[in-house]
């Protein structure tokens, strides 16, 4: 196992700059998720760690060794591709045995390693099949088996679950996490799905447009997003973000609603952020809001309302019987509201 250090890494494809100086420290045994919208450069960064793309500038270390000029096979990493990249003409066994066979390992050792990986992943009865004879989830497991067999220092996953249906995705999410807890191999996992990132990561690296926006634990990003990008990207349903003006300990939205701030902050334009679940029903002293849409989920109720002209999404623990067009009274939890700089989008520290 090894740590991975990414230092001021940039990447250019011809004249297009895709990564603008990325710094990430990944500790030994850590499960790190690179998350961001499609096209932000996650895969490129992962492929640079793997050695499939060269590094325009900066430095990547795996363990103590700088690997900028080390060939992929010398880096002691294993990668699971989005399309699995299983060798279609080889059986499951041969797919998993391939790397050991190339390394010239003795037959019985290959068999032992493949059986160990197959045992971990429950692939025992499929060893004689070809990839085309497997379901999506089984192929996914073979791809992981191929990685496990090699006992690498680092696992790299590039959107491994995006080709699976929703139910299988949840199941494989748990399996990968469980696998990591058993093997404790440093893992870098790329996804565009913030729920995957939140549920799986020890540490999330949120990226947009080739920049790292924030690095931290899932709850860190959830509770203290450093800027509007992270605030809007992490969490579902997304945080309510409303443009407007600070005035004392109140915030006046463009739509005319007055929302409470944690403390008095002077005045000036800003963006107000409040997560849907931090807005509560408050029949006595709440703000009047017109109900727009009610979506009962069972455990909670998601209600879209308008305060004046300002749209807000709220999730309530209580069941709400209001009908569209009716009025309810709500109150944001003022201690949990965020305020962001109107121009740069950075969070303004309140405490």
């Amino acid at each position, binding site marked *: 196992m090894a740590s991975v250090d990414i230092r001021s890494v940039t990447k250019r494809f011809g004249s297009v700059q895709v990564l603008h100086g990325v710094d990430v420290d990944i500790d030994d045994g850590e499960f790190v998720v690179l998350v961001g919208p499609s096209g932000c450069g996650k895969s490129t960064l992962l492929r640079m760690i*793997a*050695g*499939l793309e060269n590094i325009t500038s900066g430095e990547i270390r795996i363990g103590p060794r700088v690997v900028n000029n080390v060939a*992929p*096979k010398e880096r002691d*990493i*294993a*990668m699971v*591709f989005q*399309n699995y*990249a299983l*060798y*279609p*003409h*080889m059986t499951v066994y041969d797919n998993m045995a*391939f*790397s050991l066979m*190339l*390394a010239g390992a003795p037959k019985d050792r290959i068999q032992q390693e493949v059986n160990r990986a197959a045992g971990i992943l429950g692939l025992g009865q499929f060893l004689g099949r*070809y*990839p*085309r*004879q497997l379901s*999506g989830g089984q*192929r996914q497991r073979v791809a992981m088996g*191929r990685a496990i067999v*090699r006992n690498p220092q680092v696992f790299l996953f590039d959107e491994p679950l995006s*080709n*699976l249906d929703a139910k299988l995705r949840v199941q494989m999410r748990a399996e990968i996490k469980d696998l990591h807890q058993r093997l404790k191999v440093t893992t870098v996992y790329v996804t565009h799905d913030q729920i995957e990132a939140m549920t799986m990561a020890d540490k999330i690296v949120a990226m947009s447009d080739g920049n790292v926006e924030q690095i931290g634990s899932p709850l860190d990003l959830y509770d203290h997003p450093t800027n509007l990008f992270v605030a809007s990207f992490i969490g579902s349903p997304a945080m309510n973000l409303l443009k407007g003006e600070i005035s004392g300990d109140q915030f006046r939205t463009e739509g005319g609603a007055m929302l409470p701030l944690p403390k008095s902050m002077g005045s000036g334009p800003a963006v107000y952020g409040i997560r849907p679940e931090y807005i509560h029903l408050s029949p006595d002293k709440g703000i009047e809001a017109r109900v727009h849409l009610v979506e009962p989920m069972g455990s909670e109720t998601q209600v879209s309302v308008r305060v004046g002209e300002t749209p807000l999404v709220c999730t309530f623990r209580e069941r709400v019987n209001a009908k569209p067009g009716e009025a309810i009274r709500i109150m944001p939890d003022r201690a949990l509201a965020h305020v962001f700089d109107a121009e740069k989008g950075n969070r303004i520290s309140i405490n």
Partner: protein
Amino acid sequence: MALTTATAIDQVAVRTRRPNALARLFDNKLFLIFVCLTPAVGLLAVFLSYPLGLGIWLAFTDTTIGRRGVWIGLENFEYLLSDPLWWNAVFYSVLYTGVATIGKFALGFWLALLLNQHLPFKSMLRAIVLLPWIVPTVLSAIAFWWIYDPQFSIISYLLVDVLGWRETNIDFLGNPWSARFSLIAANIWRGIPFVAISLLAGLQTISPSLYEAAMLDGATPWQRFRHITLPMMMPILAIVMTFSIIFTFSDFQLVYAITRGGPVNSTHLLATLAFQRGIASGELAEGAAIAVSMIPFLVFATLFSYFGLGRRKWQQGSDNE
């Protein structure tokens, strides 16, 4: 509004209740199959089976030009078996097909691999590769005729006058063995584009991520070729090879245009021999018998490719993720 809707519904009802006989006939699957196939089957019968059948029938008669033949059974074939020229042609057809196929596939595959790399001017290179195939065969035959000319050959010129490696010109087409291999070289040159472009199409279907996965698994370039490219290309290699063998074995134009089977009948293929006997000498039945004698070789080559190299077990099953 209500009225028109009612009428429309009425019309639909009428149509579904009493479809006329013609419409029903055209809904009948068997009838449709029959109607659609008839023209094709008719054309095939007239333009394919008739000449083929006539050729085969001729082979069992003693027809010559100007004389209607009678059925003589296998006599023509018995004669061929004792004819050294036929054995010569069989030998050269097999040699020609074997060596040319190996040459075409070795060079064509190599070219396809090169063209599959990221090269500057890639599309222009691909177009250039196709040139030998686009040029009419007779034209390239004439070009080779000049290249192999005993006096004006450019190869001789290079070897003798430019490089000084030889004293005398080479007489490419003057003696049997050099003529045989000169023709094979010309056939390889002509056949490479077909092989290269077909195989290039096959190479492009191999997902780059397989190579990346193999690279991470520690495969050297040679191992990637040996364990990924080659097995993945097997099905398409089989198909292209079947076609190539059929075209090469039944080749006629190149040989007939360059050597006409000479010197002393040493470069006759079965096709050129059949033409020589059947048309040029007027022994129609014998020519037909020679042509018919090609059929078993072609059938064998096809079956070999089809069963030996064709669809693999790993290709069975579904593609969906």
